[in-house]
């Protein structure tokens, strides 16, 4: 079991990192040939940074659109960050002080995360319009996240796993002690938790989870409103139309 999980973790990490890097490379290398910011748009780079921050941190546009989706989405994403930060302590030795300070918050963040996900799932099932646009994968992703969240919370609040042993396993995987990995505690919640996380990492670069890098590359949000002042032409357009004259 230890070997299986260790190998799966390597595979998943590889797919996650390389897949995501490839996607980001793709998004960055495809040009935006026209100025299409959704107006009113900022007139400066600095303004654009603020606009993107507003979208990424506060979900500004979503707030204007629908308060319920905003609320549940916000609960889920914020709680996810806190929980992720809390998880840092399994990967570093000695544990940084601020990570220790996040602990108590992180424990209860899992409830917020859970409520957010359940709220999103209920809306997906109950609201006719959202049900119409949902594919099986949309439900399955939410369920997968719920499995991750609840199996994790279970280990904190119901059935503790041997955390010291787990950390030894993780560090041995991290430091590439190939085939000399420390044994993984064989508790069901932990095995489910890890299996679900591994699945999520593998799915990430091939699914709608790409909204995470995507939001930074969205031309309607990341362009400066300066079309009249600065000429903006894509390389392919120059090659196609302007090479003879220049």
């Amino acid at each position, binding site marked *: 079991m230890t070997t299986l999980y260790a190998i799966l973790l390597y595979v998943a990490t590889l797919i996650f990192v390389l897949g995501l890097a490839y996607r980001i490379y793709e998004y960055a290398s495809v040009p935006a040939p026209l100025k299409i910011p*959704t107006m009113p748009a900022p007139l400066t780079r600095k303004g654009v940074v603020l606009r993107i921050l507003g979208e990424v941190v506060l979900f500004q546009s979503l707030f204007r659109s629908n308060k319920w989706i905003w609320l549940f989405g916000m609960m889920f994403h914020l709680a996810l960050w806190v929980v992720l930060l809390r998880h840092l302590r399994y990967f570093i030795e000695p544990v940084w002080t601020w990570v220790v300070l996040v602990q108590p918050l992180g424990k209860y963040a899992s409830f917020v995360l859970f409520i957010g996900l359940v709220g999103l799932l209920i809306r997906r099932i109950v609201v006719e319009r959202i049900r119409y646009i949902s594919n099986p994968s949309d439900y399955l992703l939410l369920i997968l996240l719920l499995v991750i969240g609840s199996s994790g919370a279970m280990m904190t609040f119901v059935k503790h796993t041997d955390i010291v042993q787990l950390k030894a396993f993780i560090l041995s995987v991290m430091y590439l002690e190939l085939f000399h990995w420390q044994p993984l505690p064989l508790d069901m919640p932990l095995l489910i938790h890890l299996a679900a996380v591994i699945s999520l990492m593998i799915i990430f670069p091939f699914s709608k989870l790409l909204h995470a890098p995507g939001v930074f590359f969205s031309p309607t949000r990341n362009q400066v409103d300066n079309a009249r002042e600065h000429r903006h032409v894509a390389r392919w357009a120059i090659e196609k139309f302007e090479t003879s004259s220049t």
Partner: protein
Amino acid sequence: MAKVNFETPAFRPYPLIPALQPDVMKGEGPFVAKPNMQEPLGYPGELLDNWQEVAIAKMGELLKKYRSFRVFLDACVKCGACTDKCHYLLGTADPKNMPVARQDLLRQVYRRYFTWGGKLFPNLVGAQDLTKEVLDDWYNYYHQCSQCRRCSVFCPYGIDTAEISMAAREIMDCVGKGQKYCNEIIGKVYKIGNNLGLPEPALRDTLAGLEEDIKLDTDVDVRLPLNEAGAEILVVTPSADFFAEPHIDGLVGYAKVFHQAGISWTLSSHASEAANFGMFIGSYDNMRRVALRIREAALDLKVKRIVFGECGHAWRVAYSFLNTLAGPFDFLDQRYPIPQHICEFTYDLIQRGALKLDKSANDHRRITFHDSCNVARASRMGNIPGGQFIIPRAIIKATCNYYYDMPADTIHDQTFCCGGGGGLLTDDLMELRVKGALPRMEALKQVVDNYGVTHMAAICAICKSQFTKVLPFYGFRLDQIVSVHQLVSDAIILK
């Protein structure tokens, strides 16, 4: 009123989101372009035998050329934020008029042919082979999008359905299934110079007639010059301004403003059209070709400035794309914005006190303002973000005593499309146009009931034509839509 076989939607006591009615707007879509309309634009005349292959290849090409297309197809999480934002959804209740569902028509094919998930588990991720039925759905529903960008305001990732529908139309054109209305018009622009196919002599006659009218009306010689080389300003305006009501009253307004400013100006028969339907069909090549006429006209006539008339989509192409497509404009006077909107021009004069305006001339009108979608969400006026909302209103307030805004969630960047934009202003889409106008008509009804508003002003040729047609369906008079520069025209005191 045109003969119709559909029901005009009733005003809703509360603007609730309608329950979905699947396939209620299913159909064959607008008239398909004939071979002689396709070929001048560089597209195959009829649906190709290997259309499927060509469509997938074209999609692959667009994925490499447009970051918007690439990112938008991946990033949607189906959160539902956009589902109640489209005026066509609100007016028709057809679920495929929800922005995300409209995008999904293309996204399902993208997933099938370009993603692992869709290749391996099509049912799981809602991937779909590109069949004839899918193509028919594309043709029908991508011609029920007016590319107004309202959905993109509300999307947490800024996904703009306009970009998707433009890409879809470009793909369909490339396989030989173009839309008659748009493609026929682009052909006319290439051949004659404007959307209406108005040749130079007719244009000259019209302008002479207008000069006479103004003379009769005001006893002042106001000119509407055509092709006058050496003029200071080239004015590019939608061809509807030359003959349609209330557009033409706006054109008279521009003429009076230029007269009063004492600046020489000219229209051009070569570029006697501001609108650029190349944008509607998502064709960079055609959009560029149409835009270049303006550059050529400016060079030919040796003008120093370019000013655009009241035209929403034209202003998007002018403001956002003209520099890209037909620039650099280093031969023009760099002290002025290139190009400039007629409202910016008039507003400057008002600010400087250079226009004498008698507001009471418009006292028989109580005005509201319709923010045209492409001006509001795809361009700007003036030098601050949102100037496109401030400047037209400032002009109206300088020319009228009674001005009232429609409800806040129906104006500015949340404005509702008139229902006829983006290449849909054709009689074969009348049902869609009437139903899509519902949200705007409801907002208008509110200010009519609450403030006794009598007229709605607009700065877009399509909006004006569309409202002239659909206002009567909702119990208004067709002449309740006016041009902003018509108000200026009526208030201005000529010297």
